């Protein structure tokens, strides 16, 4: 996978769009003539504006098949927008999102939905549905009007329930589930789509710590490529193979958690002071982030009493 993330650490400093350094991904939409095999889901220098404000500015990502990529960045850095571009719900103002080399815009919604499944931050409905009903929704892109569910449909639903440990709760009403259980059902629904790419937008929000770990364990054990927006840096360090850090709509760092999660980068992007330790030396050493306080910026007095100097 030569087109995978080039370079190990591309740290900020200049504020230039480092994402563009991933040149192969940036021109991925160009076509089949390239030497690089164009497999999986990629964003090539995508931009998006809303109400004249730039939300995303030339972002490229190209997750390796089967890997888990974490999207980090403060609120408003463009994580959700990037995920919505990757799922094809939004179209980029410039740049292109490709699936196996074909721009999403040229694929039908059904074809996209058979490859890419999305789990939102928090899904809710007023419709009275059972767990089984929700998981069955995942078969929507595979089914035709007027036809009963096929053998393959039933198997995919059964599989998804088994994998998420929900088989016994198939008949339970959605409205009686806790937040963690609802997210689990949404993941089962996504699995029933039989996707190869899974996009998750802060799926652990609103969950207690046990359910956060359960959910990310589940996601990383799945045989799919996952792109997951996360707030918690330590969860990102524990579960992601690669991280992409966004700030103000630009990629400011990509690489393994050990490469990306440094005290300098966290201070620069999040404006907080941290102590980062490793659980072991070497490239596999997962970093652990301990928060010390906010970085003093224009209000030194404010930080004076939040930081134990």
């Amino acid at each position, binding site marked *: 996978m030569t087109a995978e993330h080039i370079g190990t650490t591309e740290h900020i400093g200049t504020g230039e769009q480092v994402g563009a350094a991933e040149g192969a991904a940036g021109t991925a939409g160009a076509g089949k003539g390239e030497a690089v095999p164009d497999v999986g889901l990629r964003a090539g220098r995508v931009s998006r504006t809303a109400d004249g404000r730039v939300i995303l500015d030339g972002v490229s990502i190209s997750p390796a098949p089967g890997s888990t990529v974490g999207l980090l960045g403060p609120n408003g850095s463009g994580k959700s927008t990037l995920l919505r571009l990757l799922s094809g*719900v939004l179209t980029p103002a410039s740049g292109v999102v490709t699936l196996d080399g074909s721009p999403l815009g040229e694929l039908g919604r059904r074809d996209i939905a058979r490859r890419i499944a999305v789990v*939102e931050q928090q899904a809710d*409905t*007023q419709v009275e549905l059972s767990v089984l009903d929700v998981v069955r929704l*995942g078969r929507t892109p595979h089914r035709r*009007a007027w036809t009963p569910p096929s053998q393959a449909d039933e198997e995919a639903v059964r599989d998804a329930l088994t994998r998420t440990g929900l088989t016994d709760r198939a008949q339970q009403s959605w409205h009686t589930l806790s937040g963690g259980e609802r997210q689990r059902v949404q993941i089962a629904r996504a699995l029933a789509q039989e996707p190869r790419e899974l996009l998750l937008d802060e799926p652990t929000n609103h969950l207690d710590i046990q359910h956060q770990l359960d959910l990310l364990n589940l996601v990383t054990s799945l045989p799919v490529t996952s792109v997951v927006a996360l707030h918690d840096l330590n969860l990102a360090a524990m579960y992601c193979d690669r991280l992409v850090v966004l700030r103000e709509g630009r990629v400011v760092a990509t690489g393994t958690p050990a490469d990306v999660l440094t005290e300098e980068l966290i201070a620069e992007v999040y404006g907080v002071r941290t102590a980062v330790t490793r659980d072991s030396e070497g490239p596999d050493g997962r970093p652990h982030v301990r928060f010390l306080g906010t970085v003093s910026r224009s209000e030194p007095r404010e930080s004076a009493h939040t930081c134990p100097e």
Partner: protein
Amino acid sequence: MTRRTARPRVGLLCAAGTALLVASVAVAITIGPADIRVADVWSVVASHLGWGSAELSPIRDGIVWQLRLPRTLLAAVCGAGLAVCGAVMQSLLRNPLADPFVLGVSSGASTGAVVVVVLGAGGGLVSVSAGAFLGALLSFGLVLLLSHTLGGTTDRVVLSGVAAMQLFSALTSFVVMTAADAETTRGVLFWLLGSLGGVGWTDVWVCLAVLVVALAVCLAYARTLDAFAFGQDAAATLGVSVARTRLVLLCVTALLTAALVSSAGAIGFVGLVLPHAARALVGSGHARLLPVAALAGAVFLVWVDTLARTVLDPQEVPVGVVTSLIGVPVFVLVLYRTRRTR
């Protein structure tokens, strides 16, 4: 799984519903000032379909074939159509209070129809229906635009509907007061309240044809409507082309509403109440919900219309008045329950 046992139950329910509907129509026809028995209804129908000779007097034959039968059948068609419109709108807008009447679509259709009738752009049923269709589309579009600009939450959609209803009611009154003579005014006002009096076979055939087409289209979109349960973005990621679905179903429900309003006026709350009743029976899967809602709506309106034309006999209460008397408490109940689940 257990759903397998649920499926034949729906088939059974539809069969039972159809039988109930046929029986309701037959019995409803016998109720009224002229003494007619169920057996008479059958023999009149049979003779007109060429299966036997009529043994009844021409007057009784006329009462059944020219007055009560088309009226009762139209009640069934209207009930079914309004219930289907309501079920589809509720799912499409993710709003348990959506219904052609609440959203002002019926008012828009009324305005369109009144403009055609009063301003005399041809009084035929087709041109009245065309006017009603334009009015319905216009008001539906206005409601969607308004609620979208206001933020799209449940209460905003309903408030936009109220605004549209007021606007189009005012327009209708304006047109009627300025341009119609006294007699037309009386007729129009009665029809505006929703009335099945004085309908003929043409009304039945036009509405039935539109209903069959609309129901077929909605059933083809049944699974797509299911996918809207978690919102339109979720539907999009399930492979639904949201814009096309909205456009198609918006046009179909507007067309159906327009056809029904042209013949029977704006009958309120049937589209609100019956889908909820049908959901309680068969759940929210649209492949099952839509036919059951249609049958329930048909049976419901047949009996409500029978009530409306007999309760103050010989005077007739507009059927829309009766459905509103039943519908408003249900509307409040649904509103209360959605507030609580928030």
